[in-house]
């Protein structure tokens, strides 16, 4: 079972925007859509390592700011003609707080 850890308030993330969560290895981008759904993906485009957290969020997709690759926030899959996938992480909202997979702390200890 996934154990979750509180990372902040939903209001700390702009609608159609993202904030970063730092782990020992990588950064995770936590996105908030226009209808207040929340997704967590690695903050690294598989194409050239662009920071997805700085991309334009549209629907449940984000466009990488470096070369316009588009990723589905649900699956992390690149859309259209581009091929690639970004790792997704379990995240949810409970009573206005954003909770993320606590395994992200552990996995880094193991490394």
């Amino acid at each position, binding site marked *: 079972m996934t154990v979750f850890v509180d990372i902040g308030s939903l209001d700390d993330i702009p609608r159609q925007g993202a904030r970063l969560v730092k782990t020992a290895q990588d950064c995770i981008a936590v996105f908030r859509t226009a209808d207040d759904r929340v997704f967590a993906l690695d903050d690294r485009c598989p194409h050239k390592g662009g920071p997805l957290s700085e991309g334009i969020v549209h629907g449940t997709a984000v466009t990488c700011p470096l070369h316009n690759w588009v990723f589905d926030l649900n699956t992390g899959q690149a859309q259209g003609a581009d*091929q690639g996938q970004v790792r997704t992480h379990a995240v949810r909202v409970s009573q206005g707080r954003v909770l993320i997979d606590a395994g992200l702390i552990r996995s*880094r200890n193991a490394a």
Partner: protein
Amino acid sequence: MKKKLVVIGAGMASGRMLEQLFDAAPDAFDVTLFNAEPRGNYNRLMLSPVLSGEKTYQQIVTHDDAWYAAHNVDCRFGEPVVRIDRKNRVVYSNSGGAPYDALVIATGSAPFIIPVPGKDLPGVVTYRDLEDTQAMMDTAGKDAVVIGGGLLGLEAAAGMAARGARVTVIHLMGHLMERQLDPAAGYLLQRDLEKRGITVHCQGATKAILGSDRAEAVLLEDGTVYPADLVCMAVGIRPETRLANDAHLEVERGIVVDDALRTSDPHIFALGECVEHRGQLFGLVAPLYDQAKVLARTLMGAEAAFAPVQTATKLKVTGCDLFSAGDFADAPGREDIVFRDPGRGIYKRLVLENDRIVGVVMYGDTADGSWFYGLMKDGADIGPMRDTLIFGPAFQGGAAPDPMAAVAALPPEAEICGCNGVSKGTILDAVAGGACTLEAVRTCTKASASCGTCTGLVQQVMALALGGAVAEAPAGMCKCTDHTHEDVRHLIRSMGLKTIPAVMQELGWKTVGGCHSCRPALNYYLLAEWPLDYQDDRQSRFVNERNHANIQKDGTYSVVPRMWGGVTTPAELRAIADAAQKYDVPMVKVTGGQRIDLLGVKKEDLPHMWADLNAAGMVSGAAYSKGLRTVKTCVGKEFCRVGTQDSTGLGIKLEKLMWGSWTPHKLKLGVSGCPRNCAEATCKDIGVVCVDSGYNISIGGAAGMEVRETVALASTPSEDEAVAIILAVTQLYRENARYLDRIWKWMGKVGLDWIKAQVVDDADNRAALVERFEISQSVYRRDAWADLSTPAETPRWAPLAELTLEAAE
């Protein structure tokens, strides 16, 4: 125990095959990848955009070092394989052997070299790899001859022409691309290429390449001689089968493979341009990708069979739109449907057999190509829609969403043509009165008769009245809508739409939240239209404009404070130096726009750095914005012995009036104090060159991918009038141009005369434009950092949480 897979050739087919294999069975094989080129997989199809300068090599790499490392691929790049030992299952390069359980040959194809004297001279290249591309990129200002007017040859020719070479194409057949195009489309293509300064010589047979130490000219059988510093042979390719031949595999024209892509040796497989499958060779990418899929499955021990499908061709030359698929030779029982619009250079031809499409050729407007192609592949019976087939899916009732809905919903008094104040009702009346062509409506109402940007909308209103009998409307602004940029702008105005969601709802956006292409455009159109009402949407801005800094490739940012007219003070320089030191800036660089760039700043440092710079009186230089960038100046008559006016002072004045304004694309100004033009004003979007008698204002310059000289807009003895004209033309550009069009591009659409009439000849209109600019500036002449570097906002620039701290426990 993992099996050993050796792959010879890192091309597009083998790259795709490896991807499929690693996705499905990441641990099945230890892979060794040989490549004769000293690099890994890249998208060879994209060499043409690299040649023309539209892309860089880095942008077309499909698999980088990290990818090979992640999949433990043993890369032997720059190591051609010289021998395959089938008995012991080892392949050899000059540096040693690699044993295999399974071997994949993906050696691709080799360009065909016509056996004429001089073919081996330096300066004769083919068009196959990055080295060839590099040679062709260096032809600016030189003479180049391309032998072969097929797909590859024309892309080479257009690319070199874009680089500034004088290019001649020599083609053996009667018209260009004869395998893909019929003569009519070939003619249109030739005409377009000739417009770009490319000489086309059809029915030309090459006799020899002349030159002593290197290529100097090409001699044709008919005696014509074309000078040539570089000769590119692009007459075709043949499968590269030498290794397979030497290994005594079965080879016909290509390496023979079965449906599972196995060669005559059960441990050896082949795919790509080097193979022959059921007598057929392959040169286009789609079937190669299908082969990659099949071979990945075969290697995993699954059943899979390759079955080639028909493929379509597009030419990757910017500005030449052509599409070709299927068979278009004349034959008994075949019929044609042809559509021509000579004025716009459009030609479409469908070849039918038994009410089914067997061939498609399109030139000039290829938007419906994939739809026709789908009908052809499916063998669909087109009998019921034959009458309107050529007009595409939009005319087949219900196939495409209705772009008319928003137009239909407009009230009669809604303004369609802003230039001439023509309402929807006026246009409907004109149509009811018998005007059923665009020209007729233009003549009797003046709608779309000035700047022309509302043409699409006028056509839609007419179509509404006439029931769809007007020529097709231009393509939509992005995949989210069928409305053009111009239509969307007009409808924002006439329907009073003041938010992005309102635009998307009322104009029937097909996606939920738009996309990265339409959202920034809508944000701009709304703030330009309603400066006092609209609240700028930061989340619809590209990262640089959202973070008010320029993102670099490693995710850091660059910071450029404004230096008015390029003038600074010791105090400002000290503040910049302090900031650079305090935040450990890796590079401090002087920009081309007469200011100082601090490169490599971390995102979380941006608000702090700007708090310091703001405190020293500096504001953002907006070196990232679709807005006013710099006003470059020379020292002018204050110091210069030949200066005629105070060019520095005028530059500062303009920058202080215009800073903070958003424009359709970036806006750079220059003011030179005399015609020696030290501020390079004549390659800016707006330039002023001072003379004894006053100020010469010119617009539409550029010095980026396009290099253009400005054209004269106005001359005036008065500095105040010069300022007013510049503000007015800026506002006209803001209100009228399509998002991401620079002034030169916009000017090409509306015409210099129209701009002159608006801002030079009509003093009242000029004053009104200046007033509207000033209203907008009352909101936007403000440094974004004043709001963003506050204590409340600063934390938002740092990570939301750091899971590392908890980990340390």
